[in-house]
């Protein structure tokens, strides 16, 4: 069973600056994948970090399972929320399994070191993400795509109820993108609540049960993907033209492809 996060009237602005987003209210709960779309710079990452309790909103509250996240200790939050950031590979040559093992920190007291049980949970997390074969590799010897999977495994090792992923596919090649999306769907099917900030509307169509678009400091639209991802909303959000097409069997889903005047090359 997943946890729930509620945002009530959340506003965030940097000191001395204007608001990044204002008066956002939404609730994430009970399984499923939520996609957060929006152009560069609208504050998707910031919103996600506010949800994870890593940044404090200037106004409003974030509630985790009904409790104000601001009053919670880091380890209490980390047992419920797993946050997968966008980072470069760590410069320290820790082994992949030791990186994933760090996910157990919130379950261990300050004086404790990880036990055999913790190592087993970490191994299981590696397995669910499909990178068990990388366990003994130093993390300086893996690619960016593999690193993203390691971070997901680390978040899973926290055994959270909610997983927040900040643009997990942005730097990945096609194969790895597909892999990550599949892992996400698999986790959602197992009951985890997942929030993904992403650049790719098509990925949202692929995985999500609900979508929200963040633009101009507010939520432009929120709801099931069929309602939110439409050609007019995409144009409003990104200033780009798209075509939403339903492909028949065997693919059997709606896809979103960009269309631009310069792309049209007719056969002579």
């Amino acid at each position, binding site marked *: 069973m997943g946890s729930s996060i509620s945002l009530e009237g959340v506003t965030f602005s940097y000191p001395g600056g204007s608001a990044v987003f204002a008066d956002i209210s939404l609730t994430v709960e009970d399984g499923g994948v939520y996609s957060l779309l929006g152009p560069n710079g609208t504050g998707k990452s910031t919103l996600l970090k506010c949800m*994870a309790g*890593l940044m404090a909103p200037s106004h409003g509250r974030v509630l985790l399972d009904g409790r104000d996240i601001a009053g919670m*200790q*880091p*380890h209490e*939050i*980390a*047992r419920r929320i*797993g*946050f997968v*950031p966008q*980072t470069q590979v*760590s*410069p*320290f*040559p*820790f*082994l992949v399994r*030791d990186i994933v093992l*760090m*996910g157990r*920190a*919130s379950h261990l007291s*300050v*004086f404790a*070191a*990880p036990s055999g049980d913790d190592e087993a949970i970490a191994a299981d997390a590696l*397995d*669910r*993400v*499909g*990178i*068990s*074969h*990388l366990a*003994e*590799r*130093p993390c*300086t*010897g*893996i*690619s960016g*795509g*593999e690193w993203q*999977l390691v971070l997901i495994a*680390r978040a899973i090792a*926290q055994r959270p109820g909610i997983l927040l992923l900040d643009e997990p596919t942005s730097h990945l*090649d096609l*194969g*790895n993108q597909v*892999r990550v*999306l*599949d*892992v996400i*769907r*698999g986790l959602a099917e197992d009951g985890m609540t997942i929030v993904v900030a992403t650049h790719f509307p098509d990925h949202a169509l692929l995985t999500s049960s609900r979508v929200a678009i963040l633009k101009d400091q507010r939520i432009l639209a929120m709801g099931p993907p069929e309602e939110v991802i439409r050609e007019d909303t995409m144009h409003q959000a990104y200033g780009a033209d798209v075509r939403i097409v339903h492909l028949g069997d*065997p*693919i*059997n*889903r709606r896809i979103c492809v960009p269309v631009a005047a310069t792309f049209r090359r007719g056969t002579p």
Partner: protein
Amino acid sequence: MSLKPADGRGVHAGEGARATGTATPKQVQSRSWGEQHPGTVQVLLLGVLGIVAFIALMAGRYMVPPDTVIAVVLSSVFPIEETWTPTAASAVVNVRIPRIIAGLLVGAGLAVSGASFQGMFRNPLVSSQILGVAAGAGFGAAIGILISDSLVLVQVLSFVFGLLAVGAAYGLSRVRSTTPILMLVLSGIVIASLFSALTSMVKYVADPMNKMPAIVFWLLGSLNHVSAPDLMVLGPIIAVSIAGLLVVRWRINVLTMGDEEARALGVNTEHLKLVIILLSTVITAAAVCMSGIIGWIGLVIPHMGRMLVGPDNRYLLPVSVLLGGAFLIAVDTVARTAAPAEIPIGILTAIIGAPIFAVLLRRNNPGW
């Protein structure tokens, strides 16, 4: 529409390189033997430490035959007939043993606090003196020497001001209830410069024949003036603080991921940083007030440790303790036996350590 391959197997069956798609761009570094057997390395180092301490006990400018040394040491536990002079006993018990214990504590303490700071600051070039503890302790000692003849007062003031300096650096670096690493470094530089300048001012006021050289000399690293009473007080302080750092060593791993990620993983980074800073500072301040400023150890021993067992602090910190202790005992033994006059230990730590470090650097990949 499912993404699963047509044969229905899930992605997470072991599919080798295909599962990850691209070939790994960086060269895969093979792990050293030490990294694969960290426990054995620690046992071996313990043995090395024992041997080094034993040799140190035997060596000295006052000739005591080896069997006498052993007899003297054992006689504190077992009743053995005294066939030696009181001076020989004094040389072993009052001069050598305190010095060896001091070398162990100071070497181990500086090494482990250096390793902890390097993890916390995510920078291999820091030592525990980056927050100004040595500059503060030097100032305290200078004031003590200036106003009195009492060695105890000098040591107390040195310890107190060492802590005060770091406290000031910590307070200066607080930004809205967090202490960002960059602010800590900058504050440390500011505070260290301030206390350095104050120490120069004290030197200026002091009489140039007695007090000023005494101040400068006190700051030079030396285990020559460590006495048993010093050790009784400062020894447990250092030992307990080392133990404290060892207890949280796994969490330092998490801290190396960066403040934000560590917090996301559930670590209370502010508390942890404060604990590390406090323990490391206590160790360094106690070491400085016992034996002056001995450089190089907090910086280089962790590197050597990393080359032996890798960056995992679960193994790196204990290895640093053993390596640092053995190293300083060995260097101090050379300092007091190689020449008629004592060789300053700071020079020796550099001369002996640097070539060893250079050799290690050439053989392994440098960096973390």
